[in-house]
């Protein structure tokens, strides 16, 4: 997968490296901002209350 991305990025090695970095940052942003907040309540790591459910 990474090889495929690398081959399809334009420019020389430096531009490719920069673009890869940007892609990685964008991915982290999407994960932190949207994916993880959505996934977290579905995972049993953060229930702190006692209840009847």
């Amino acid at each position, binding site marked *: 997968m990474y090889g495929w991305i690398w081959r399809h990025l334009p420019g020389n090695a430096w531009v490719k490296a920069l673009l890869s970095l940007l892609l990685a940052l964008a991915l*982290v942003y999407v*994960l*932190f901002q949207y994916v*993880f907040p959505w*996934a*977290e*309540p579905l995972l*049993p*790591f*953060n*229930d*702190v*209350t*006692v*209840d*009847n459910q």
Partner: protein
Amino acid sequence: MLGLFVVYSLWWTNVIADRAAGRQADKVRHQWAQEGGDDTPAAFDARNGIGFLHVPAMDDGDVLVEKGTSSKVLNDGVAGYYTDPVEATLPMTGKEGNFSLAAHRDGHGAKFHNIDKLSKGDPIVFETKDKWYVYKVYAVLPETSKFNVDVLARIPQESGKKKAGHYITLTTCTPVYTSRYRYVVWGELVRVDPVDGDRTPPRELGG
């Protein structure tokens, strides 16, 4: 991916939560300051928080207390008082009952992370606009089922109490990084001090 999720839950949620809690705490402090030191009763705005919890043994400063224990409330890095399944009795009412609170153990501010550092005799101080409510820990339940709602009872029998009194209950999850069980700490009111003009903390907080 998994590593990122760990970074997210243990670090990033704390950043976000502390920011939110700081903002809300500032709002409450500001409002108290504006209302001044006269005898008008504290404005009861549960949405902004009702006061601050100080637990020297947990060493995490003042924890804002807000209404409710949903993750929406607790994820802002605050402690919430129970409205369900057993409603907390707020200390300001002066009524006998149980002031039951919950907060995160890890992530989202992790306000009760060091709950295991609390032992019998340690002070828990709740600060409102005009009063310091000084509690002392008298019982600890290091592990219980998450269905054990009796710990929130008006008279928490499991802590060894038989008579009504002014109790405080802290709940969070245990062991750390999981939510398999609940950790419970009970305290009892020893004293109520008025807040003076300089908001000098009671001696339990080094004041």
